């Protein structure tokens, strides 16, 4: 199986995640879509690592996972703080800086 197959699958997943970020309103679901995009990047990294026959791509994917975990922790904590203040997780309701 050529690595190109995996790269194209990663592209499709990345685009679906991006559309999800644009379309959805619930902040948690937006976070999940961001996670999907990060996972797609990881798949591409692993495919490229196999293409080059070394492990650097896998190490980068590992770092992406660590950073994604940190991002999720902080993001969800911010989300909970916002939810406590305004009783809503919808990104439409956080519009104090809009006007």
């Amino acid at each position, binding site marked *: 199986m050529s690595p190109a197959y995996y790269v194209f699958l990663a592209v499709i997943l990345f685009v679906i995640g991006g559309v999800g970020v644009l379309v959805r309103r619930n902040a*948690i679901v937006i976070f999940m879509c961001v996670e999907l995009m990060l996972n797609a990047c990881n798949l591409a990294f692993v495919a490229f690592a196999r293409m080059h026959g070394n492990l650097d791509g896998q190490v980068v994917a590992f770092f992406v996972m660590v950073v994604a975990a940190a991002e999720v922790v902080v993001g969800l904590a911010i989300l909970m703080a916002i939810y406590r203040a305004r009783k809503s997780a919808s990104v439409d309701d956080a519009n104090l800086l809009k006007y």
Partner: protein
Amino acid sequence: MSHASHLLAAGGGGTNLDSIYVQVLYWILAIFAVGAAIAMVCVRRAVHCAVMLAIVMLALAVMYAMQGAPFLAFVQVIVYTGAVLMLFLFVLMLIGVSSADSLVETIRGQRLWAGIAGIFLAVLLILGIGHAAIGSANPATAANGAGNLTGIATLIFTTYVFPFEVTSALLITAALAAMVLAHRERTAPKPTQRELARRRVTSGHVAPEPPPGVYATHDAVDMPALLPDGSTTDRSVSPAIAQRDIELGREPIRSVTADLAAEARIEAARQVEEAAAGGAPGKGRAPGKDER
């Protein structure tokens, strides 16, 4: 089992061996992953989104294993599907499972334009990657020779040792940030036991809340209790359960009245029966006075 080992040997070594198993598994997983990803974007409830995301992540974990990255496959299952997704579910439970997205578009045509932008992005990326020369898989070099885990460990602790140390600082910062953000400052002093007792006496409800009602045909925690004067009280029902009843379109109060009517009917029927039985000894529940 032998198929699985064959598959791992074919794809796991990172070789260019084109096994039919690898191809079939790739297409099955790809269809699963893309389908679940699309469902994740379309499904309204956040919990269903999380389940779909779990399917995508597990499919990707198998794909990592197929591509000679068993370490990443396990990390994907343990860290992503196990920890990150559970964190998502925790926050979902805290915020409210029933929080579904509103279908009202705040920006007109947002979905249409998001879809168009997605198609453009896909075309752009696919054209770019199509023009790039993605070679076939190289057989594993000496870096992979001692095994995947050893190779990754060697890289992390030699070439990438500085990013690795920075990562630890990042994780500690993230943990501290989460603690600070999730911490709620106490604005009022904690009430003492004496204050709690005083509050309870002044509220007028010294006794514990009434237990849920038990009726002729209904017996559940969402049934309001029956007070001595024959009226019902909703103070015996937890607000969460009452909210659920409203969501499910149930009306416990109506079933209580129906129940009371049924109880009255049963009682009337029993009295009629008793009267018909007359003074038969030992028949009625309460023996007549003339029997003594």
